């Protein structure tokens, strides 16, 4: 993964890394759950001190942007966007609440609600594709 580091900047390198990774998460260049290069790989790619990478990752983890899974490596956190403040707005949540309440009133169980949601989501995606062309 290439990140441009400005050595002469007043921003410490670890900070530069953090910012760049966050930026990419926000821009969905990095998806939640996507694996990140190991500390070693990134250090070797960028030719910087692994401690610097380690610090960046540590702080990113603390800030909830990434998670480390033991033995598996580092990944973008599932709720990274939320942690980063990219939460969906209130109205969308409220709509969901309403829909769920109505579905339950119709006598649908959780699984059915979930299946319905998935189907509608799929449908919306295909329609988006077909519609937008």
């Amino acid at each position, binding site marked *: 993964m290439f990140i441009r580091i400005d*050595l002469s900047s007043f921003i*410490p390198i670890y900070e530069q890394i953090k910012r760049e990774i966050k930026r990419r998460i926000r821009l969905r260049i990095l998806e939640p759950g996507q694996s990140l290069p190991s500390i*070693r790989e990134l250090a*070797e790619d960028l*030719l910087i001190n*692994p*401690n610097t990478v380690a610090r960046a990752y540590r702080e990113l983890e603390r800030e909830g942007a990434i998670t480390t899974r033991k033995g598996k490596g580092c990944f973008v956190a599932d709720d990274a966007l939320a942690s980063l403040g990219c939460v969906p707005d209130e109205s969308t949540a409220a709509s969901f609440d309403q829909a769920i309440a109505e579905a339950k009133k119709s006598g649908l169980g959780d699984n059915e609600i979930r299946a319905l949601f998935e189907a509608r989501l799929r449908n919306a995606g295909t329609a988006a594709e077909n519609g937008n062309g």
Partner: protein
Amino acid sequence: MGEILRIERLDKSFGRSMVLRNLDLTLEQGKVHGLLGRNGAGKTTLIRIIMGIIPRDEGSLWFNGHAITYRDTAYKNDIGYVPEDPFFYDEMTIGDLLKLNSSFYSRWDARKAEECLDRFALGRKSRIGNCSRGMKLKLGLAVALASNPELLILDDPTSGLDIPTRRDFLRDLIGRLAEEGTTILFSTHLVHELERIVESVHILHGGRLAFSGDYGEAKRARGAADLEDLFLRVVA
């Protein structure tokens, strides 16, 4: 974070000129330490004294908490040393040199040595005298790494080498750091490379340490743009 190396009140003269005077230095474990100084400032002398190649006139040295005299040599088992001019026996083959070294170090890792040879594309049967400077440097690093040191001392090993080789060298160092967390003391005046990995900066000037501290903080405190700038600000 412990201290891996501590030096107090070190003096060294050559003839009538006092090269190091009353020098104090402490190296924190696990970090990359940069040793900067002008040519002739005494960096190599300091390193040679640490390595016990030449004796000091006055002062004390502790390695991992143990006091070290000129006669002690056991502590060198835990130090990997890559000098500026790799001093090797031209007549030997690379394999012979590794075999020779393997008998010196208690934690010698032959597998790691093999990996290094492969990664650096060095042949076991090559005669050292026929190797280029870059190959010798890599060999020096291989020897230093295979001994599994706690402290790695590099005395301007990359000067005179081309950029790709220097990059390779740096990459290998970084790999080492990532894996083992070895303490590194890197003496050089090619600050651009050091820039990327240094954590603590020690600047030798006038036989003394004119500056010693965390790079990030120093940069901020002195308003330096980069390592070179910091250096110039300190020695000015």
